[in-house]
């Protein structure tokens, strides 16, 4: 059947807005966006868009800026690096990429040893966090729901104080004239103050203290889901508590351990504040190298190269974490 053209509705100039909608409605049916609404697609997209925009604004764009500076060269100007491209004429653009900054990181053992040292500090701190957090998380998971909330509250409570203030508080505790030394000397355990500030010990205390909640919370959320009747069954079958812990609880809690460890390890590698406040000057962590490049050498390009290299270094554990999470999600289905 030949299609008969629809009669042209009269175009009205006055009050045309509503009229136009009606025209469109008659012609094409309801507009597509109302369909989306009906299936809530628009809502979904909006919800997804928010984190995307967030990441774009506060991660991708700054990352691109840093990445760009890392290929530049230093010069004495505002800002203190050369632009990557210059228009030599109206049509031609002169692009100068300088890979020297990345090569420079390899020529000097400073950067490699700082990376390795940062990894070491982060690994040891993570281990201590795990050793302390596991029993705590287990205890909370096994306690009654009412006290459980209280315990969780107590873990989160320190976050209400500024991170910086909490680290400063440790200075007051650890220094030679500090609380710990004074108490020990008053009791008579020691005669001379023990130097704790500006040592590795102080840095580990600072990091473990600051990041402990990041280990406890994922461990708790894992342990809380465990079916504790499994332990009863194991006990009935004659397994000792240690054996049933090693054979049942520990393997089941591996996802929690991995999540907690990464949450502690990743920020600890780049930690700057704690080592500079509590640590001694001979602890060369990558965060400090970065700040030296930036502030003392005024070499923004090399500082950017260090930052990019550090990011790549951290990508590996993050990707392991992602894969682990994906596997766990698949397992849950």
């Amino acid at each position, binding site marked *: 059947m030949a299609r008969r053209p629809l009669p042209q509705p009269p175009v009205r100039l006055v009050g045309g807005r509503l009229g136009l909608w009606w025209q469109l409605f008659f012609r094409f049916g309801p507009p597509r966006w109302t369909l989306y609404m009906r299936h809530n697609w628009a809502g979904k997209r909006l919800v997804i868009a928010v984190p995307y925009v967030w990441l774009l604004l506060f991660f991708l764009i700054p990352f691109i800026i840093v990445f760009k500076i890392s290929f530049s060269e230093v010069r004495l*100007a*505002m*800002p203190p690096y050369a632009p990557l491209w210059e228009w030599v004429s109206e049509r031609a653009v002169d692009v100068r990429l300088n890979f020297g900054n990345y090569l420079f990181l390899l020529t000097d053992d400073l950067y490699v040893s700082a990376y390795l040292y940062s990894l070491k500090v982060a690994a040891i701190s993570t281990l201590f966090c795990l050793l302390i957090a596991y029993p705590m998380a287990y205890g909370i998971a096994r306690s009654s729901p009412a006290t459980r909330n209280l315990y969780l509250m107590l873990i989160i409570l320190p976050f209400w104080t500024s991170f910086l*203030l909490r680290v400063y508080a440790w*200075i007051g505790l650890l220094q030679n*004239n500090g609380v710990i030394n004074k108490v020990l000397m008053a009791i008579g355990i020691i005669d001379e103050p023990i130097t704790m500030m500006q040592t590795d010990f102080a840095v580990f205390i600072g990091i473990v203290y600051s990041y402990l909640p990041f280990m406890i919370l994922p461990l708790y959320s894992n342990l809380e889901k465990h079916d504790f009747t499994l332990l009863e069954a194991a006990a009935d079958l004659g397994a000792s508590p240690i054996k049933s812990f090693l054979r049942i609880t520990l393997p089941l809690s591996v996802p929690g351990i991995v999540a907690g460890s990464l949450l502690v390890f990743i920020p600890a590698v780049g930690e700057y504040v704690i080592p500079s406040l509590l640590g*001694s000057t*001979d602890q060369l962590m990558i965060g400090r190298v970065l700040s030296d490049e930036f502030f003392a050498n005024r070499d923004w390009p090399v500082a950017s190269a260090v930052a990019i290299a550090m990011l790549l270094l951290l990508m590996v554990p993050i990707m392991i974490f992602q894969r682990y999470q994906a596997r766990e999600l698949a397992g849950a289905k």
Partner: protein
Amino acid sequence: MSTSLRLLMLGATAALLVSCGGKPAGEAAPAADATGAAALDTDAEKVVNVYNWSDYVDPTVIPDFEKETGIKVNYDVFDSNEVLETKLLSGNTGYDVVVPSASFLERQIKAGVFMTLDKSKIPNLANADPVITERVALHDPGNEHSVNYMWGTSGVGYNVDKVKAAMPDAPVDSWRMFYDPAVVSKFKDCGVTLLDAPSEVVGTVLIYLGRDANSEKPEDLKAAEDVLMKIRPYVRYVNSSKYIEDLANGEICLALGWSGDVLQSRDRAEEAGKGITISYHIPKEGAIAFFDNFAIPKDAKHVKNAYLFIDYMMRPDVAAKNTNYVNFASNNAAALPMIDDEVKNDESIYPTPEVMAKIVPDLAESPEFTRQLTRSWTRFKTGR
């Protein structure tokens, strides 16, 4: 509690005071106009944003300036030249007056950060000490971009009793206190600290070695590094502000520090009344002087107010008040009669001409040398 935190809190309190003081100052402005200050050439917006060193002004000076001019001062503080420089090089700091030290000023002028000053807007510049002005001109040719605020030296700050107990015949007026391992090792247990200012500290090592403090020769840097490496085991930490507090409360006993800061530490120790006596000496081998200078960034939005602020700080009575409070020598010659005797007769603040002759400036390094210096400094700090 550490100094920098206290400074931070002081800064916050100062900011609060300033913001509370804004209103009365605004009300006082017409009164000032009525008394003949109508000629004040201010910007339309009566605000000036100042970025100065921490603990570097008498607390009454800023409110007085606000009362007199009706200009609200937003007063921020920093404790390292590097932080200031990074902000300046990024541009758009929002500050109208900043106070870099001369060696940094020199480089920042080359980077085109500051405007050329119109000296007719700073009539009190006539009060400036020609000797100091000439010294700053080494960094800022013709003094076109800056006005010196205060100056001082880096030297030996120490806890008199503890040093005496550790070494009765300690050479407290010599760089041997830090750079002779036989001497500095005696103070390891009571705590030794150095400034985290590579070019200044390396400069003082070169003075100790009898070489040119501003040398950029690789062999001189190597020689200085060797000295520093040998004393590394005896140094507790390297920091430019923590030692003020730690010296005052006995946490450390020997600090390579800036003159005024050590003397502030002395005053704090006296106030605390715990029987700790702090003293400061300019070493007899010579020392490095630093000069902190007012300058106006090119992108400043309240330039007229900035001139008024600088001019106010150069008024003899104001300069005297500041020097009496912070214990750094003023560039203001006309202020000298109003400075307390105990400050102006203190040779560690106002050195004698003989000592002055041995005091050298810390000139800006070339970018290549900066990298070698920082690398060498990192090796020293990390002890490897």
